[in-house]
Each structure stands twice: as C-alpha cells, then as structure tokens.
C-alpha cells in the first residue's frame, strides 16, 4: 500500500498530489511537465516535497509535520528510469548486483543467475550497457531494480525509447512480472493505450494536479474534464447547456443549436452546480442514419480522411450559429459510399453521449 499526499512548489507550477494504491498497477497519464516524474522522485526520496506525507506499507517515508524524511537508500522503492540509467562502467552482472553490500555476497551468484534467467538476458552477463540494445538495457534496468526486492516499483516511461514490437513484448512481460510482485507499481506513460493496458486504475495529471484517478473503465467512460476526455479519445467535445433533467435523462443543447439532445444519466453529475457543460462523444459512437428521430443532427461532409483501419469523416453541423464539426469513424467500405458536400443525418445515441464540467466551471 502506497499513500501519497504531498505539495511542492516548482518553477512552472505547484505540485499537489493525493493518491493511494493497493497492490495494483496505477497508470499515471498526462502531458509532459505535468508533475508525473516529479511525483515519482518525491516517492523515491530523490526530491524532497515541501509538505505532506508519504507512507509505504507500514513505513512512513516522509512526514513534514513529524520531520521524517527517509533517504532514498532506505526507502525500498525501486525506480526504473526513462533512459534506463544503467551504470555504463559496470557489466550487466555488476549492474544487477550493485545494491548488494560485500557482506551479503554469499549465495548472490545463484540469485543473479536466477534473475538473469527470469528477465531473459542470458548470455549478456559480462557485457557492458553500451553493448546492449535498448530492449536489453531496459530488461537489465528492471532486473537491477527487482533484485533489491523493493516494496514498490516506480516506472518512469520505461518503454518510451523502444520500437513498437519490442514495447508490446515488454508490456506483457511486465504484466506477468506484476503477478509475482507483491507490491504496487506506478507506471508513468504518455501513451494512453499503454497506460490503459498496464494499469488497473488510471490517474491523469494536469499542471501538477490529479484531475481524475479511478478504475480505468470509469476514466474511459466518464472523463472528468476536457483534458481527460481528449486523452481518452473523445474527439468530439462541444460546449453545451443543460436544459432539463430528471432521474434517468438529461436534456442538453449544443451551443448555437436549437435542438434538445437526450443523454442517459449514468452518474450524479451534480447539476445544481452548473448549467454550462461540455458534451462529448467518441467518433466511433456516432451513427449515420436515414430515418429521422430522437437525438439526430444534420451535417454536411466537409472532409474524409482514410486511415489504416477505418476512415475519419468530418461533418459541419447544420442549423448552427457558428460552426461545430463532428468527427465520425466509419468502416472504409461505408466511407466509400459518401462524398464531400453530402448532407447526412447523424444519430448521437443517448447512452453514448457523455458530459463533463465546462472549463470555466
């Protein structure tokens, strides 16, 4: 169990983090410079927060009130750096055994061999980091951290320098490692797909604060604000107004559109607090339809862009003061049937429309 509640003043922003994990992988997402790495460094004891506390299992690592600040070497926190940070002047074996004091050396040889086996880096024992591929270096970095039997493992964009296929292989390996690892893992990444795959929960950082921290499905389905929504692939985000609401549905209007749209109410939005909201829908959830009905808007196709797996179609909504564009994902075969300038009816299913706090709210 890891409990972090810290504040730190930095040059660009103020870090104020509050998170807790319990034997899981927590994926930490967010733009660069939003405080992800700084948070990990505070937990590891490499950077001292201004105030707050950090607790790992039964041990208080940092408590500004009680004046506790354990040095990094006593924290039992494993850290895997983005650029591996291997010791270039030591061999693979020496790197892995670095944290072992000379008095503990007996029996270490077999343990190193086991670790080398487990991480599939056999045959590289006597090589230097400069002689390894980046994937091999990352395995050595992981092995080196795990060899200290840390109580928690912090991974700072560990796969960002790898090729896509190497990345996937290591992702699955890390997931299986986690099953044998009793502690928590914090996994920092800027790759949403990776973060979603790796974590059971996701924390999204924005300028030093956690804007949402929840089970990954919730973050995906009910993003807390525009940043999270964008990150999660909700590409259509439209300023809207709440018109009416009851227990099961909420009626909203896109800004400038004289038409009520229904939205299935899945959670308590705390509507009393705000009327202005942002409505959102994923491009793959917008349906093209022929028959008129509920939740249907009209739009003119302005552009069709063909991608690898599907086509993206951009439509400008009709009957709107100003301009609102809606992106729709289509199967390539369907996209071939429409052309630019065509008027289409779009259905925005009530159970697919989501809404969140407006930026100004």
């Amino acid at each position, binding site marked *: 169990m890891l409990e972090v509640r810290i504040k730190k003043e930095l040059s660009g922003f103020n870090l104020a983090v509050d998170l807790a994990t319990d034997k899981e992988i927590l994926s930490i997402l967010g733009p660069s410079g939003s405080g992800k790495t700084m948070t990990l460094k505070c937990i590891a004891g490499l950077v001292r927060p201004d105030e707050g506390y950090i607790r790992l299992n039964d041990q208080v690592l940092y408590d500004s009130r009680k004046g506790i600040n354990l040095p990094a070497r006593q924290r039992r926190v494993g850290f895997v750096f983005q650029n591996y940070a291997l*010791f270039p002047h030591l061999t693979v074996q020496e790197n892995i055994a670095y944290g072992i004091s000379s008095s503990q050396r007996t029996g270490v040889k077999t343990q190193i061999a086991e670790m080398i086996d487990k991480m599939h880096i056999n045959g590289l024992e006597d090589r230097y980091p400069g002689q390894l591929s980046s994937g091999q270096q990352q395995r050595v970095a992981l092995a080196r951290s795990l060899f200290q039997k840390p109580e928690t493992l912090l991974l700072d964009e560990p796969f960002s320098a790898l090729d896509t296929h190497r990345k996937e292989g290591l992702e699955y390996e890390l997931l299986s490692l986690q099953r044998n690892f009793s502690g928590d893992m914090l996994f920092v990444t800027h790759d949403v797909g990776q973060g979603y795959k790796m974590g059971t929960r996701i924390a999204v950082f924005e300028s030093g604060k956690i804007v949402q921290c929840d089970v990954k499905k919730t973050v995906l389905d009910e993003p807390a604000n525009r940043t999270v929504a964008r990150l999660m692939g909700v590409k259509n985000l439209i300023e809207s107004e709440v018109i009416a609401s009851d227990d099961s549905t909420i009626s909203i209007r896109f800004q400038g559109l004289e038409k009520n749209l229904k939205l299935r109410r899945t959670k308590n939005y705390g509507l009393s607090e705000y009327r202005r909201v942002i409505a959102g829908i994923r491009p793959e959830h917008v349906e093209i339809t022929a028959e008129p009905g509920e939740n249907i808007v009209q739009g003119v196709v302005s552009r069709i862009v063909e991608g690898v797996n599907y086509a993206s179609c951009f439509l400008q909504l009709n009957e709107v003061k100003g301009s609102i564009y809606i992106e729709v994902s289509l199967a390539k075969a369907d996209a071939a049937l429409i052309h630019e300038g065509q008027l289409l009816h779009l259905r925005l299913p009530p159970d697919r429309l989501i809404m969140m706090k407006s930026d100004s709210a």
Partner: protein
Amino acid sequence: MTESYLLPLWISLKTVAAATVITFFLGIAVARWMSRYHGRAKHLIDGLFILPMVLPPTVVGVGLLLLFGKNGPLGQLLLALGTTIVFSWPATVITAIVVSFPLMYMTARGAFEQVEPNIEDAARTLGASEWKVFWTVTMPMAWPGIAAGLVLAFARSLGEFGATLMLAGNIPGKTATIPVALYFAYQAGDMNQAWILVFITLAIAFSSLAILAYWRGRRPNRKHVRLLGARSQD
C-alpha cells in the same frame, strides 16, 4: 658537480608530487561541491578559482607575497606559530598548487557535470550511500575528465616558474626547482647544466604522459564513451 643537476631534479620531484596530490584531492572536492552549488555567487566563486590561470604567474607571485609576507594575514598567522613560508621549500609547493588548481578544478567540474544525475539517482534508489555513489558511480564515470585534469595539473606544477621565483626564490638545494635552476644556469652561461635540465624535464614530461595515457586507457571507461556516443545518436 654531479649533484648540481640532481638537486633541482629532487626538489622539483618533491614539489610536483606534493602539489599534484594536494591539487588532485582539493580540485576534486571543490569541483564536486561547485557542480552541485547553484547559489547566486556561483559565477563569482568560479571566477576566483580560475583566476590564477588567467593571471601572469608574476602577478600570482605578488598576490602570494601579500598573503604570506611578514605583513600578510597568513604570514602573520604563521609567524605567530613560529614559522615562515617565504623562501622555504613549502613555498614551491604552495605556488605549484595555486597555479595548477584551476586546471584540475575546471576539468573535474566539467567531468562531474557530464555525469547524468539519473544514474547517480539510480544508485541511491538501490541503497547506496552518498559516499558509495561518489566512489562507485560518479568518480568512475567522470574519470576520463579527472585524469585529463590530473595530467594538466601535473604539467603545470612541473613548469611553474614566475610565482615560484617570487615566493620561494632561488636557493640551491632548497627552493631551486628545475625551471628556476635552468634559468639561472642559462644566465650564468652554464650551458651544460642548462641542457641537462632541459633533457631531464623532457624525459619526465614524456614518461609521465605515457604512464597516464596507459593508465587512462586501461580503465573500463571506453565502454562509457561508447555508450555516450550511442545515446547522442538517438
């Protein structure tokens, strides 16, 4: 006569050995401290440390005389302890340290600043004390730069003339180092003595460069250099 060139050689060797050892450790300690110091006075302190390298040695000599002379603050302190530095053998060591320190300091600081902080941090998270981090990570990684500084500091102390002459003088068998003895031999027209001293200096310079080149090359840091090269490509 046989001893006339052995004496300056012996004095120079003693002086250079003492000065290089002190400069080495002092330079490393100060460089380490400065590589982490980010206070307001950083540039000022930095400038002060490098000053002896920029100033003509005779000016450094005047400065040292002001410090260590009878009326200087350090001179009076030593006088109170019943000793004096001016025109004694330790004066040759002091001048050699002062002029060689900037070279050791500058190269060592550059070398320390090249060591990636993440790698030192990694050692800390693996349970290493600051002392262990320094000796097992920082020093080996900075070693090529440190060794270069050592060579430069050694060469500079061996060649020191102007400040030495002013603070230590030319007392044969006591403060007359090779460069000083060579100058006075030449002035006196003793060309035999002068040539012998020239060749001795050349021999010392070449053999020490060879030893240091070998010593540096033997360190496993070629891997390090290769790694840095590989990293700069991506």
